[in-house]
C-alpha cells in the first residue's frame, strides 16, 4: 500500500497540471496512467526510445509538453506508468494493476483525470476493416507516426474532425473529404463573438481550416456518412445531406471512394471509476453524455474525490490544463495545505471563464443536427463483442422493452470485453426512444469493476494477509460489514 497526499488518475493534460499544482503546495503525489509514457491524448508521446525532435508540425507543442512532463521528476511525485486504476475499493483507495508493481494507493484526496474516448455511433459498415475512430487516427499519427490509409474520408460531427483532417494532410495523405454533420458555415456568424474570447485558440482553429483549404480538401458540412462499403476493407462511403428538421435525405446519397474512413461523433468522458463509487452523474449531451456532478471546487458528490478535464466534461486541452490545476488547488485546500489559495483561484478561474466562452461557441457550432439512431439498419451490429444487431434489440424490445437492465440481461449487450463502452450509449438511446423517456431518466445497469480489463496475473503481486478459510463451506459464510 502506497500512502500519498494526492492520488491522480490519468497523466494527461489535466492530471499533469494537477500534479504541478499539488507539488507547489508541498503535497506528495502519486499519479497512475495506463500508458507507458505520460501525456494522455493531446500530449501523447511516441513510444521509447523515440523522442520528439521539436522540428515537425506534430511537435509544435513540444515545449509546453516537456514543461508539463518535468513534474514527474519532482522528488514528491511518484509516477506509475503502464498502470490501470481498475477499482476504488474505498473512496480514498485506488486499486492499481501494473504487472509486478500492482498495488493499492491510499490518498488524502483524489483527482480523477481519466480523459475521454470516442463516442461510438453505429451505422451500416462501421465494423469494416479500414474504418477507424477520429481519436484512434490521432493516436496512430501521434503515437506511431502512422496513417490509416492513402485516400481517406473523415466523417462525423465535432471539431476533432478538422484536427484529424489537418493532421492527415500534414502527414501527406490525400483527404478525400471532410464530412461534418453540423451546418457549421450557417452557424458561424452567431458563434463569432464567443470564438473571439480566445484569440489563440481561434487562430489555431483557423490554421487547421487553412491547412485543409490549401490542400484543396472538400469540406462537406450538413452531411453525414450513412454507410461504409467494401468486402475485405472499406472502399467507399455513402454520404447524405441532413435537412433543417434533422432528417437524413437518402434520395441524395453520394458515394466517395476511399481506402480508409475516419469517423468521429465526438467524445465521451471516461466516468467508469466515478460510476463505480457512486458519484452522482448528470446527462449533458453537449459535454459528452454522463458527467459527474461537481461543486464549483471540482469536487464530485463523493467527498475528497475531484474530477478534472475531459474525464469530467468534454472541453478540450486548455480547459483540462486549467481544471487540473484548480482541482488540485481545491484538494490542497481540503487537506489544509494550500498556499495563496484565493489569489491563485481567482487567476485560474478568470482564464477558465474566457476559454469557457470559446468552448460554448464551439459547442453551438457543432451541436448534433440529427438523431444518430436514424443511421441504424436492422442488420447493423450495435454490440461488437456479442454481435448483437439493432434488429435483434428491437425484437427483444417489442416483447419487453422496459429497462436497460433487462435488455442487457436478455441480449448480453454490454457484457463483453468492451464493458459497454461501444454499445451502452446506443442502448440507452434506443430504450429512451422506445419508452418515450429522456435518457437522463433511465436507470443504468450497475457498473462493476474492473474499470478497464486487467490481467488476472497482475493481481498476484500485491502483498495481502493469508485468508481465513471456512471451516465448513456449506454453512453461512457470515457477512462482513453491513
Amino acid at each position, binding site marked *: 500500500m502506497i500512502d500519498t497526499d494526492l492520488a491522480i488518475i490519468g497523466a494527461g493534460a489535466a492530471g499533469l497540471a494537477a500534479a504541478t499544482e499539488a507539488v507547489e503546495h508541498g503535497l506528495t503525489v502519486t499519479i497512475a496512467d495506463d500508458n507507458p509514457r505520460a501525456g494522455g491524448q493531446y500530449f501523447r508521446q511516441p513510444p521509447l526510445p523515440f523522442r520528439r525532435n521539436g522540428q515537425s508540425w506534430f511537435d509544435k507543442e513540444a515545449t509546453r509538453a516537456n514543461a508539463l512532463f518535468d513534474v514527474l521528476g519532482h522528488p514528491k511525485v511518484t509516477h506509475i506508468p503502464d498502470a490501470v486504476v*481498475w*477499482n476504488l*475499493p474505498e473512496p480514498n*483507495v485506488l*486499486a492499481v494493476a501494473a504487472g509486478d508493481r500492482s498495488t*493499492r494507493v491510499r490518498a488524502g484526496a483524489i483527482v480523477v483525470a481519466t480523459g475521454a474516448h470516442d463516442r461510438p455511433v453505429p451505422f451500416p459498415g462501421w465494423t469494416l476493416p479500414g474504418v477507424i475512430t477520429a481519436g484512434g487516427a490521432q493516436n496512430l499519427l501521434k503515437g506511431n507516426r502512422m496513417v490509416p490509409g492513402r485516400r481517406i474520408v473523415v466523417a462525423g460531427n465535432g471539431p476533432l474532425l478538422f484536427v484529424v483532417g489537418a493532421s492527415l494532410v500534414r502527414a501527406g495523405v490525400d483527404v478525400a473529404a471532410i464530412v461534418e454533420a453540423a451546418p457549421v458555415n450557417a452557424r458561424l456568424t452567431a458563434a463569432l463573438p464567443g470564438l473571439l474570447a480566445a484569440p489563440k485558440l481561434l487562430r489555431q482553429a483557423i490554421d487547421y481550416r487553412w491547412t485543409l483549404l490549401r490542400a484543396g480538401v472538400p469540406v462537406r458540412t450538413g452531411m453525414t456518412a450513412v454507410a461504409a462499403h467494401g468486402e475485405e476493407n472499406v472502399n467507399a462511403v455513402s454520404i447524405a445531406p441532413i435537412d433543417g428538421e434533422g432528417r437524413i435525405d437518402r434520395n441524395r446519397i453520394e458515394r466517395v471512394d476511399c481506402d480508409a474512413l475516419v469517423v468521429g461523433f465526438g467524445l465521451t468522458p471516461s466516468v467508469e471509476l466515478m460510476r463505480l463509487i457512486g458519484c452522482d452523474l448528470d446527462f449533458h449531451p453537449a459535454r459528452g453524455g454522463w458527467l459527474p456532478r461537481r461543486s464549483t471546487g471540482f469536487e464530485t458528490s463523493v467527498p475528497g474525490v475531484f474530477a478534472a478535464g475531459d474525464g469530467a466534461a468534454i472541453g478540450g486541452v486548455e480547459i483540462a490544463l486549467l481544471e487540473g490545476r484548480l482541482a488540485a488547488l481545491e484538494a490542497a485546500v481540503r487537506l489544509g495545505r494550500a498556499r495563496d489559495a484565493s489569489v491563485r483561484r481567482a487567476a485560474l478561474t478568470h482564464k477558465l471563464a474566457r476559454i469557457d466562452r470559446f468552448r460554448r461557441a464551439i459547442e453551438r457550432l457543432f451541436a448534433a443536427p440529427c438523431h444518430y439512431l436514424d443511421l441504424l439498419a436492422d442488420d447493423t451490429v450495435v454490440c461488437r463483442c456479442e454481435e448483437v444487431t439493432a434488429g435483434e434489440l428491437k425484437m427483444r424490445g417489442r416483447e*419487453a422493452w*422496459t*429497462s436497460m*437492465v*433487462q435488455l442487457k*440481461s*436478455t441480449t*448480453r449487450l454490454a*457484457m*463483453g*470485453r468492451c*464493458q459497454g463502452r461501444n454499445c451502452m450509449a446506443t442502448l440507452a438511446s434506443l430504450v429512451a426512444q422506445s419508452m418515450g423517456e429522456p435518457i437522463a431518466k433511465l436507470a443504468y445497469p*450497475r457498473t*462493476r*469493476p*474492473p474499470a478497464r*480489463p*486487467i*490481467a*488476472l*496475473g497482475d*493481481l*498476484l503481486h*500485491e502483498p*495481502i*494477509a493469508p*485468508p481465513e*478459510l*471456512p471451516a465448513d*463451506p*456449506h*454453512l*453461512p*459464510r*457470515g*457477512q*462482513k*460489514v*453491513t
Partner: protein
Amino acid sequence: MADLPKDTDILVIGAGIAGLCSALYLARAGRTVAVVERGEPWGDASGANAGTLSLQVKRPEVLHITRRAIELWQDFKADFGIDVGFGRPGGLRVATNAREVDMLRHSQAEQRTLGIEVEWLDGNRLRDTAPWLGPTVLAATWCDWDSYSSPLQAGRALIDGARRDGVAVIGGAAVTAIAKETKGYRVTTALGVIACNTLVIAAGAWSGEVAAILGVTLPVSADVNMLSVTEPAPHLIDKVVTHIGGILSLKQYPNGTCLIGGGWQGQGGLASGRKEIDHEQLMHNFRVAIGVVPALANLRLVRSWSGFEGVAADALPLFGPLPGRPAAYVNACARGGYSQGPALGLLMAELISAGRTSLPMERFYPARFAS
C-alpha cells in the same frame, strides 16, 4: 409488460430459479399460476449466479435432489423446448494439501454409501485428464454428473417458457402485505391486489422477510457471493472445477469466457441492500484460481460482481408448508440453489397438487425451526 391478474389459483412470490421452476411444473400439472416479482424477473441471485451444476460438492442431505435436478436440467430442451445452455462435461473437485486430500477421501467414502460414485484421480491419471491443472493440485475426484448451464440463457428461456405455458410472470410487483381470506390469500403488491388459493414463497434471501408478513419466523441470512468473468479465451478448461474446501468454482463456457467464483464474500448485506466487491477477498479468490489453473494468470478480467445467496441457519433448503398457515408454502434457500432449482420446483408442484413428493422432503420443512 403483463398486467397483474385479479386472481389466480396459485401465486408464487419471486421470479428466480425456485419460483419459476415451481411455476413451470405447476402449470404443467394443469394449475393456473402467476409469479409476482419485486424487481426484474431473474434479477437477483439466479441472474447473478455462476451456473455451476455440481453434484459432488453438495451436502449429503441434498445429493439425491441435485441428481434429480441435473437430469431435469438436461431434459429442459426435450421437455419444454427450453434451451438453458446446458453442458455436461463432468467435473473435478480438487485438493491442494494433505488435509484437503483427507477431506476429499472422506467425502468420496460418504458419497459412496449414498450410492453416488465419484472417481479418485491423482498422479499421472490426474495430469492426463486435466493437463491444465497446476502443480499445487494433489488429487481430485471426478464426477460425470457435474454440469453447467448459462444463467443468462436459462433466465430468458425459463421466463419465455413459463409464459408459453400460460404462467403470468410480472415484474415490478413487490409483495407488501398478505391477508388471510376464508379461502386462500389476498396479496398486495406494488402493482395492485391479487387473490389466490395457494401461496408459494420463493423470494430467495428475502423469504424470511416475506414469511414475516404472514407472522412466520424463518431463520434466513444472506451470503454476499462474489463472481468474476474473464475475456473469451481459446478453449482449455474442459471440465467444471470445484474445490473440496468450497473456495473455488471455475469453468469455461462455450463462448470462451471463464467464470471464477467460490463463495468468497463481498461487503454489504440484506439490511443495507449493498453488495460490493471486497478487494482482499477477491484477490484471494483469484490466487486460489490461478493456483489451480495457472493459465488463468494470462487472461484479462472483464467484470466482478456479487449477489445475495439466501441460507437457512442449518444451511438446508427451506421447503414445504409454512407451519400454521394453510395453503402457504416456501421454496427457498437451498445452498447451491441454482443446481437444485428444477428438482425443488418439480417437488413443490408434486407437494401442492398431489400432497406428496417423489423424494423424501419432510426434513426440509420449515416446521423444523418452530420452537
